Structures are given as structure tokens and as C-alpha cells.
């Protein structure tokens, strides 16, 4: 790893830590300094991360998708960018701490364990595979955000139902907004997962990937569940608490099928 890449592999998680800390201080204690620096800190983190990804591509000659830990830094970046888009488009600034905490976790894990994977397959440079991976990552990031928002929805719902009006009641946006944001995130995620599937289906005949690969099956299950949920949303009365529980379950299942199992495998698909 060259010196600049090494410096950025440390600076990027530190920037995430700073931005997450600022959002945390703003949410819980409403410190003036935190309110004023949190968005600049988020932009700075995005810029540093972009440079870091660029350096990784320059060093390896392919996008950082060859190992689980390379994927993690890419996921952290897509989470951050997706959140930034949500914050700028909706004006909702109270959820930053919760989304960025997940991105921080991904980035710290990645920076800690990332290592050179040596000469990667030429396949990684193919545009169809890049489309497949980028779409899948965007899809999973959106699903992750929907899961986080659903979790916040449930926490706020619990406070309202039990008359324990705490900090979340005071600071978080309303339930309906969470429901809308989660739904839009799922729509966005489903679209990109579909694109990932189409690109993957085109790509599979050119590879030795088995069709009974657990991650492949797992992702198809996730995609199918979200698809059925979106299609029959009204008929199944998938709103409120039911929808939140479904989105959290979907997120956990997707996360497990995509990352946890990869810790025991040298390749993304078997």
C-alpha cells in the first residue's frame, strides 16, 4: 500500500468518526458547534472518501469490489452519499447520526482489515460486472437506510404507544415521514437490485458461478420479498408497524447473506 493510500485509509474513518460525532452531539445535546459543523463535516468526509476510492482504483486498476473489505468501504460511501441526498432533498437532518453510525462501522472494519488482494481477475474490469456490483451496492445501501428508518419508526412508535415521551419523541421527525422515507428507499433499492439481477443474469454464463450459490439464492429471496411487499402493499396492509418489521427483517437478512457469509469465503460468489 503506498503512503498516500495508507494516510487516506486512516483519514477516512477519522472523518467518518468526526461527522458521526458532530451529528451525535447535535442530536443528543444540541451543541451549537455541532449544529454548525455537521454538514461541512459530512461533505468533507464524502470528498476524502471519494479521493480514497480513486486512489484504490488507481492502485488496483479495478473498482474496490474484489474483497469483502473493499466492498465495505464502497458500501460506506454509498450509504453516505444516499444519506446526503436524503438530507439535502427532504431537509430532514435528525437521522444523520443513525445512518452515519452504520457507515462508520463499515468503514472502520474496512480500513482495519483491508489488504492488497494481488492481481485480480480481468473480469472485474468488465463493464457489465461493474454495473452489477454498483447497482447491487446502491440497492443494498437503500435497503439498509430503509431498515434504519424502520428501526427509528418502531422506537418512536413505542414511545408514543407507551406514553414515554423521551428524546426520540422530541427530536425525531414524525412517523408518517419515516414511513414515506422508508418506502421511497425501498423503491429505490428494489430498482437497483433489479438492475443488478439483470446485469448478473447476463454475466453468469461467462463465469463458473454456481446457480445454487447461497448468496445468490439469498439475494433472490430478498428481492422477491421486497417485490411481493411492494406489489401487494395495500392488500397485505403493509403499513405502519408491519412494514417497519418487514423492512428491518429484510435488511438483516440482506446484510447477513451479503457480508457475514463472505467473511468465510475468499470469493464473493462460490
Amino acid at each position: 500500500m503506498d503512503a498516500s493510500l495508507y494516510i487516506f485509509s486512516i483519514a477516512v474513518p477519522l472523518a467518518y468518526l468526526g461527522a458521526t460525532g458532530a451529528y451525535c452531539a447535535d442530536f443528543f445535546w444540541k451543541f451549537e458547534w455541532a449544529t454548525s459543523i455537521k454538514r461541512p463535516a459530512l461533505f468533507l468526509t464524502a470528498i476524502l472518501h471519494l479521493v480514497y476510492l480513486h486512489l484504490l482504483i488507481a492502485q488496483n486498476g479495478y473498482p474496490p469490489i474484489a474483497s469483502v473489505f473493499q466492498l465495505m468501504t464502497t458500501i460506506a460511501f454509498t450509504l453516505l452519499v444516499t444519506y446526503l441526498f436524503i438530507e439535502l432533498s427532504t431537509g430532514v437532518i435528525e437521522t444523520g447520526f443513525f445512518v452515519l453510525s452504520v457507515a462508520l462501522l463499515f468503514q472502520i472494519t474496512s480500513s482495519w482489515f483491508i489488504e492488497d488482494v494481488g492481481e485480480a481477475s480481468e473480469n472485474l474490469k468488465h463493464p457489465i460486472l461493474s454495473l452489477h456490483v454498483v447497482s447491487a451496492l446502491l440497492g443494498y445501501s437503500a435497503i439498509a437506510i430503509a431498515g434504519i428508518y424502520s428501526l427509528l419508526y418502531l422506537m418512536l412508535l413505542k414511545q408514543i404507544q407507551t406514553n414515554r415521551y423521551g428524546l426520540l419523541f422530541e427530536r425525531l421527525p414524525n412517523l408518517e415521514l419515516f414511513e414515506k422515507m422508508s418506502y421511497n428507499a425501498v423503491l429505490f433499492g428494489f430498482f437497483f437490485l433489479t438492475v443488478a439481477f439483470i446485469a448478473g443474469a447476463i454475466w453468469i454464463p461467462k463465469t463458473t458461478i454456481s446457480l445454487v450459490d447461497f448468496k445468490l439464492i439469498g439475494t433472490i429471496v430478498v428481492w422477491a420479498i421486497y417485490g411481493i411487499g411492494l406489489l401487494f402493499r395495500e392488500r397485505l396492509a403493509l403499513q405502519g408497524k408491519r412494514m417497519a418489521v418487514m423492512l428491518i427483517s429484510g435488511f438483516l437478512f440482506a446484510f447477513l447473506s451479503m457480508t457475514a457469509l463472505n467473511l468465510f469465503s475468499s470469493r464473493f460468489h462460490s
Partner: protein
Amino acid sequence: MHSSIHSQPEATQLIAVGITHKTASLDIRERFAFSEAETKALLAELCDGIASEAMLVSTCNRTELYAVPKLPEVTADYLIDFLISRRAMTKEVHREHFFRTFACGAVKHFFAVASAADSMILGEAQILGQVKDAYRLAAEVGATKTTLNRLAHDAFNVAKRVKTETKFSEGAISVSYAAVELAKKIFSDLSEKNVLLIGAGETAELAAKHLIEKKARRISITNRTLAKAEALASELGTSNVLTFDYFKERLHEFDIVISAVGTIGELLSASEIERAMQKRKRATTLLLDLGVPRNIDKSAASLYNVFLKDIDDLQVIVQKNLDARRAELPKVERIIIEGVVEFERWLSSLQVAPTIRSLQEKFNAIKAMELARLKNKVSDAEYKLLEQLADRLIGKLLHFPIKSLKSPAPTDDSLEGKIALLRDLFDLDESAAAK
């Protein structure tokens, strides 16, 4: 010595007396309230005789008189007796029902009143307007001068700081407002929600007004007496009135239902609500039961996507907000103290201003006299130089005495001592100080 002319200016003799929710019962307070006309008459009478400035704050929770006396015999008890006599309540009301406070204490109390830190409901919004009204009335009859003008404007500034720098005025503190606060935590845009108001009484009206403040527009009203529903509808600017025996059939159309019907008991059963929920495909519904006894079957709370809250539930929000306001009191207190210090500094500057003026006049007179003796002995250019030299010397010589006079004195006595010493040392003209 010059003690006769060094007595404190009238401003420091500010006296505040009054009855508040802390000192007297509602029974006494309500009989002690003054109308605008009575207030003006009372202030005019005071300023004609015994006070140089006066202001009366009269609300349902307090009647307070702030006065700068003209005569030394005008004490707090004198003012209390004056108030009691004007209300002809010498038998029912005694001096013990009144608080009394002076100088700094009176200033601090007035700032606390204007900031709602002394209110029965901490942080309430109405009191500042009432204090402004009291000041306006006093100003209209010419009862405010230097001290009370400054006091009132400083109080407005303190109240503004409390509002902007603390959370002392935040959160709902009435059940009807808490209901709206809760609705805002469930729905994102109240203007898109259909609201049904069951009942046309005061509670329903108040809740509807709060909802309208939060941009709710689609409000329908139903009431046992149709005429009352129509009257409230016209007051709220809506034409949607449902007959009382028909509203259940249209229950499914509403996202928010506020029921505030007294003495009637249960109006909506869980099965009726379940039927409505089926019709509206389980879309989120908020039921606010503000009736006593309750109007909605409490088992409806377990229905999917139904939020049912009664007065006790909403009272929890009110209590939480009141606790939050109480927690802000130290910050409010600090702002009030800063305001008092600022006011006292201004007051001190009033006290020392005549001495500073006398000192400067004395030195300038000496300069003029000495320069006149040299006028014909030096050239014009040299005279100008000498004049500049004299000005610089006076500036430097007076810098420290003036700075010392303007610096805060620990007590009134020490400030008086300083003034007396300076006047004695420099043999200053006594009549100037008295002006």
C-alpha cells in the same frame, strides 16, 4: 461634607408591591384586578401626589404596583394601604397578602414577571403582552419617566433573550395543545388530513384552533346541538358540519378524530372503530379523547394503526414539557441577573453623571483661566500648542477618577462615599450635583 446633596437619586428607591398567585388566593386576586380605565385613574392619582413614576401590572394572577416615590414617607406599606383603600377591601385584604420588594429586588422581580419565570405556568406566552400593555397604559397617562421607561425596555429585552436563548417557552402546556403536538409527531402534513371534531365546547374549540395554527384545513364538526356545531364551524371558517346521528357512518373518512363531549360517556365503541379502520384500509388514525368521562372505548387502542389517547395520556406530555421548562430555570435566572446588573450599571451612571460633569467643568474652567493669562504673551501657534497640551493633561488627569466612578461599587454607601470624596477633594459646585 455634602451629604445633603449626595442622597441617592429617586431611581434607586424603586418600590414594588403586589398580590400574586404566590401570596393570595384566587378569590382575593380576582377582586383586586384593575380594568384599563381604573389603572389609568390610579396611576394619574399616584403621580399627582406621592410618586414621580408608577406602573400597574394587573392580570388574573397578579396585581403589582411599581413606583418611584416623590416623598420619603412613601414606603411599601404606604403603597399597599393605598391599593387596598382604592379597592375598598380593608376588611378582607391585609398587608400580609402582599409581597414587597425594593431597588434591585424590584428590578429582578419585574424581569422575572416579564419573562414568565414568576408565572403560575412557567414560560407562558401571555404575560409579556400583559406587561407591555401595563407599560403602554402607564406611558399614556405620563406616569413613566427615565427609570420606568428604562426598566420596561430592559424587561422586554430580558424576555426576548429568555425566549431565544432558552427552551423556556417550548412544548405544549395545555392538554389541547399537547393533542396537536402529538398529531404532529404522527402525521407530517396536517393540511392534508381530515379532522373530525366531536363536540362544540371550549375544549373542542381550543383543540381546533391549535390545529388550524398548525395548518389543518379539512375540519368537520359534529355536535348533539347542531346550532352549536354550526356556530363553531363559522368561527373556525369551515362549512363541514355533520349531524350527530350520521357521523359514525363517515368515521372512516377521518385521519384525526377529536372527541370532547362532556357528561355523555362512551360515544364510539371499539367495533365501530374497527369497522371504520377496515373501510379505510388500516390507514393511520389518531383518536384524541378529551371528554370526561371518556367518549371512546379504550380497548380501541389495541386496533392496528390506531392511536388512542385520552386526557391522562396527554397530561404526560404536558408534565414532560413543564419539567423541561423547570430545568431551564437556572439559564433564565442567569439572563435575569445579567439584566439586573446591566440596569444597575445604568442606574449608577445616572448617579455619577453630575459629578463627572462638575469635574470636567471645573478642570475646563481652570484651563480657560490659565490660558487667558498667557493669551497675549505667546504667538497664536504657541497658544494652540498650549491649548492642546492642557486638553491632553486634563484628559489624562481625569481618566482614573472617572474610571473609578464608573466602575461598579459593591454597595450604594461606597458609591456615595466615592462621590463625596471627589466632590470634597476638588471642591465641586454642590448645586450642579443636585441638578
